[in-house]
C-alpha cells in the first residue's frame, strides 16, 4: 500500500523550473534513497513534500495517505506524520529545547486525539530515548539548536524524530556534518523506528549514509526528474562511474 504517490510533478523556485515531470511512489515500510548531483532538484522535492514557502507547484499531484497533500498547510502535513530532518536545522534562541519538544509533541497528540503529556511524563519518555541512543541529555536544557555543533543539530533532529514517531521520514543530507560515530548512531536511531509500517526517503549525495540505513529502492535524479530506479546495485555503479555513468547509460 502506498503512503506517498507523486504524479508528474512540476515545481518552480524563484521563477526557475526545478522539478519537471517527476513521478515517485513510496509504499509503507519502504526505504527509498534519492541520489543526485547538486542542483538536480532533490532538496526541492523534500521542500515540496513538506510545504516550504519558496516552492511553487505548477502541475501534478501528490497523494499522501490517500489525501491531497498539496492543499495542506505545512503544520498539517507534519501532524499527519511527515517529518523532515533538515539539512540545516534552524536556531531558536531563548527557547528551551525540552519545552520545544513538549510543544511539538503535545500539538501532535492533540491533533491525533491522543493524550497529552505533562513535563514530567515527557521528560521520562525523552530520557528513555536519550539513554537508549547514548545522547547527552544536556541538549535538552539548551536553547533549540542555538550554538549546537553540526553533529548536535543532527542528533537533535533525530531526537525529535524518535519522539514524534512519524510515518514518513525525509532525511535531507542527514550525513552532512556528521562523523562516522555520529552517523552510526543516527542510523541506529532511524532503524529503531523502522517497524515495517514507516517509510523513509533518504536524500543524499553520498553512499556513506546508505551503509547504515539500507534502502529498498534507489532513485537517481537529474534535471528535475528521476532518470533511473533500481536496487542498491545502482549505488555501486555511481561509485564506479559517477553520475555521468548513469546519465550515459540511460541516454
Amino acid at each position, binding site marked *: 500500500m502506498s503512503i506517498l504517490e507523486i504524479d508528474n510533478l512540476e515545481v518552480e523556485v524563484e521563477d526557475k523550473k526545478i522539478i519537471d515531470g517527476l513521478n515517485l511512489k513510496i509504499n509503507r515500510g519502504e526505504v527509498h534513497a534519492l541520489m543526485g548531483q547538486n542542483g538536480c532538484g532533490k532538496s526541492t522535492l523534500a521542500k515540496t513534500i*513538506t*510545504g*516550504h*514557502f*519558496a516552492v511553487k507547484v505548477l502541475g501534478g499531484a501528490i497523494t499522501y495517505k490517500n489525501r491531497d497533500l498539496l492543499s495542506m*498547510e*505545512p*503544520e498539517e*502535513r*507534519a*501532524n499527519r506524520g511527515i*517529518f*523532515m530532518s*533538515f539539512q540545516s*536545522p*534552524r*536556531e*531558536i*534562541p*531563548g*527557547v528551551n529545547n525540552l519545552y*520545544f519538544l513538549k*510543544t*511539538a509533541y503535545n*500539538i*501532535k497528540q492533540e*491533533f491525533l486525539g491522543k493524550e497529552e503529556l505533562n513535563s514530567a511524563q515527557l521528560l521520562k519518555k525523552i530520557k528513555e530515548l536519550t539513554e537508549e541512543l547514548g545522547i547527552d541529555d544536556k541538549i535538552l536544557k539548551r*536553547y*533549540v539548536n542555538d550554538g549546537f555543533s553540526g553533529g548536535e543539530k543532527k542528533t537533535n533532529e533525530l531526537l*525529535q524524530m524518535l519522539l*514524534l514517531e512519524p510515518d514518513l521520514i525525509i532525511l535531507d543530507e542527514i550525513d552532512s556534518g556528521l562523523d562516522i560515530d555520529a552517523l552510526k548512531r543516527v542510523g541506529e536511531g532511524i532503524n529503531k523506528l523502522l517497524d515495517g509500517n514507516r517509510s523513509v526517503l533518504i536524500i543524499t549525495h553520498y553512499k556513506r549514509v546508505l551503509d547504515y540505513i539500507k534502502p529498498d529502492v534507489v532513485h537517481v535524479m537529474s534535471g528535475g526528474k528521476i532518470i533511473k530506479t533500481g536496487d542498491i546495485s545502482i549505488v555501486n555503479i555511481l561509485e564506479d562511474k559517477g553520475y555521468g555513468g548513469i546519465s550515459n547509460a540511460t541516454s
Partner: protein
Amino acid sequence: MGIPLEEQKILSGVAVDAVFDSVSVVTTFHEHLKEKGIIFCSISEAAKNHPELLKKYLGSVVPYSDNYFATLNSAVFTDGSFVYIPKNTRCPMELSTYFRINAQNTGQFERTLIIADEGSYVSYNEGCSAPQRDENQLHAAVVELIAHKDAQIKYSTIQNWYPGDSEGKGGIYNFVTKRGICHENAKISWTQVETGSAITWKYPSCILKGDNSVGEFYSVALTTLKQQADTGTKMIHLGKNTKSTIISKGISALNGKNSYRGLVKFSGNATGSRNFSQCDSLLIGENCSAHTFPYLDTANQDSIVEHEATTSKISDEQLFYLRQRGINPEDSVSLIVNGFCKEVLKELPMEFAVEARELLNISLEGSIG
C-alpha cells in the same frame, strides 16, 4: 489582569492595592503586613496616618518641576500607592498595585512612593489596564523609589493599557516618570513588559548615589497595530564602584514603532563603575520599525561601558522549521518572541511572568500575514 482581583490575589498570597481612576479602592493583607511594621496603603491614607514620611520623601526623587507631565501629575494627582519597609525587614510577600482607567474622557494621575529603609527588601508589582475607548486618554504617573543603605527594591510592571485600533484611533498616552535613588550598597531593579498604550514615553531610571550601589533595567516593549513606544532608562552613576545593567528587548509588528532611548552617565566621582547595555530588536513583517538611541556621558577615565545591540527578523526559514514540527504560524511566532524576551521575563516574579507571556501572545494575535 483579571477582576475580581481580590479573591484571586488573596488565594495566591499577593497583597494588592487597586487604584481605579486614580482612587485607591482596595488594599489587601493590610493587617498581616502591619505586624512587620510594613506600611502598604493608598497615598491618601498615608497622608492621614504617616504625614512625616510623605513630607520627607514625596517629590524627593522626582521634583514637581522635573518635566511637563511630572508637573501635571504633581498638581492634580488624587491618589496612588504607598509602601514603607522598615529597617532590616524582608517583605514576606509580593506587593501588587493594579491600576485601571474606567471613566471616559479622563486621565489617570496616580503616584507611587516606595521607601525601603536600611537593609530591607521588597518586590513590588504594578499592573495596568483600561477598557476600549475611541478617544485618547492620558496616563501621567509618577513613581519614586528610595532604597536606603543595603536595601533592595524590585519593581515589576506589566503595562496593558488600551493600544488603540489598527488605524491608530483611540488608546492611552502613557507618559510616566519613574525614578529611584540608591544609597550606599543599595539596589533597584526595574523590570517592565510594555504591550499596551497608543504611545509610551517611559524611562525608569536609577540614581546610583551611594558607593557600590546597583541599578538594573530589564524591558520588553511590544508595539503592534499603530503603537509607538519610546522607552529606556537613565543610569546616573554618582557613587564609586556603582554598577548598572540594561537589557532591552523591543518587538515591532504591523505598523508598530519601537525605540530604545537610554542614557548612561558617569560622574567624575564614579570611579570604578561599570555599565553593561544590551538592546535587541525583533521585527515581524515589513512595515514596522525599531530604533536605538544609546547616550553615553562619561566624566571619568576609570569606568567601563559595554554596549551590544542586535536587530533581527523572524525569518521565514525559522517559521518553516517550527511549522514542519506541527506548530502553527501564530504559536511559532509566540515561541520565537518568548525566546527572544527570555532574559527579561525570567526577572519577573513567577505569576507575573506567566501573565506577561499570555499578554505577549494575545498582543501578537493577527500580527503575522
